[in-house]
């Protein structure tokens, strides 16, 4: 019999699959008022593959949002490398990009949905105008195209079209979040970053937003990183999951494995704290 029992790992065609995003050794330190060093995240390394949703779970202060902020260039890391295959052929470290390239990253290659819609939306620009801003930044020029795209994405995200010309300042939290999602997806970025997108919403509204993201993921096959403290959100959306604590990735694996056979003491605690 041929070597069936050998323990060699020979993955089939997945071996040829290339990650969309590779992050190596991402570290962010802050200085505290007293001059001490605060570790926001330390030596965070992971890959994201095309079409997959990667979950990052952890409590507040674990560094999970810092990872997204660094990727989206809101915050510059202390050290680390990241390569996005859609950006300059995956040859340029995102954190060594110049101003113009960084702008391109934020407008063309990636988008971010923030926990607080105030960060992702201009609340005193109409819902349609917010999406138009994003498309203009991505160099869309024809007003008719922009208008059509805006109404397409607002209807996909179930924002009533008769509210398109209203200001999101007067929308409910759930609807603001849906406008933010429409804006983030409108120019079809390679990578979508979702930071605590349901935190602070009523449970029934949370369900609607999660169903929307799941539905879009299935229909458009978007690649995303979902950051949440809520294992329910991770369970619903993520194929693979990283668990972060005190700035470090303490565990990584298939989402069902993280939930059913957690290895790290912190993950075991987290899984056992879930009330449903």
């Amino acid at each position, binding site marked *: 019999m041929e070597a*069936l029992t050998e323990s060699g790992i020979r993955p089939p065609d*997945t071996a040829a699959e290339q990650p969309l995003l590779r992050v190596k050794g991402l570290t962010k330190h802050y200085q505290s008022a007293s001059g001490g060093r605060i570790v926001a995240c330390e030596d965070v390394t992971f890959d994201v593959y095309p079409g997959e949703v990667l979950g990052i779970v952890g409590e507040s202060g674990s560094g999970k949002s810092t990872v997204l902020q660094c990727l989206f260039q809101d915050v510059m890391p202390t050290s680390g490398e990241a390569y996005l295959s859609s950006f300059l052929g995956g040859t340029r470290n995102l954190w060594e990009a110049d101003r113009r390239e960084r702008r391109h990253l934020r407008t063309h290659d990636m988008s971010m949905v923030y926990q607080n819609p105030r960060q992702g939306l201009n609340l005193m620009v109409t819902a349609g105008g917010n999406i138009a801003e994003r498309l203009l930044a991505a160099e869309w020029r024809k007003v008719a195209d922009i208008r059509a795209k805006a109404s397409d994405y607002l209807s996909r995200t179930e924002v009533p079209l008769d509210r398109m010309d209203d200001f999101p300042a007067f929308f409910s939290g759930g609807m603001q979040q849906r406008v933010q999602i429409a804006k983030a997806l409108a120019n079809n970025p390679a990578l979508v970053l979702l930071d605590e997108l349901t935190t602070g919403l009523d449970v029934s509204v949370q369900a609607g937003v999660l169903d929307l993201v799941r539905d879009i993921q299935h229909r458009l096959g978007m690649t995303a990183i979902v950051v949440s403290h809520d294992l329910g959100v991770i369970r619903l959306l993520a194929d693979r999951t990283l668990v972060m604590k005190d700035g470090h990735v303490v565990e990584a694996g298939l989402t069902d494995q993280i939930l059913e*056979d957690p290895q790290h003491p912190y993950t075991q605690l987290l899984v056992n704290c879930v009330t449903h």
Partner: protein
Amino acid sequence: MTEPLLSVRDIRKQITLHILDGKQVSPLRGVSFDLAPGEFLGIVGPSGAGKSSLIKCLNRTYLADGGTANYRSASGEIVDLLHAPERTMIRLRRTEIHYVSQFLKAPPRIPALDVVASVIVNRGGDPTEARARAAETLSALGIGPELQSSYPSLFSGGEQQRVNVARALVDPPRLLLLDEPTSALDAENRAKVLEIVRRAQANGTAMIGIFHDIEMLQQLADNVIVLEDGLVTQHGPIGSVQIPGYIEAGAAEFV
């Protein structure tokens, strides 16, 4: 002799419960067996013997602590299910290995029909055809159109189990891992499951199944493993293995 589809050697599993002061349990203490293509291998044993742990290790829902499980994929490659990259496991789960848990874990707020159809859609199938096949499979299991358009979270335990079976068999995989898929079913519905499992068997699907129901086992299994305290105590053709008395006693609880 044909090459095995799956060759399991010395699987070990230890669980350390940090939240219980590092208490350790060892559900699997060195399990080995081969599974031929198209074979149905039944697993029996008392509760706590490690039956579910074994199936979960093969699906990578559990991380094994030792051993190998070399699986011959459709493309002819040998993949160690215990150690293959996560992305490989995701692909195999989508295309050729399906695990049926004892209880349905369907995503919320999706109608039963779409829960089942999504298996085919995720394999790249046509959504309209997927829904037609899902409807046919669910109907064969006694889940009619009325229920098909409802959310499985509202179903009875037995109905949920049949949605679970429909999901596994709407497009029979190469390897099916079954963890007591009929524990909540009455005799009539067990017969429906039996029928549809047989169809998949005829189609060449190999299966590893945990059953508390001796009749199901006798009608489906080619071979049986008796698992006790994390070890294989018997392994052989269904007729030659002495099925311990607790199996039938176990079935009685559910009927």
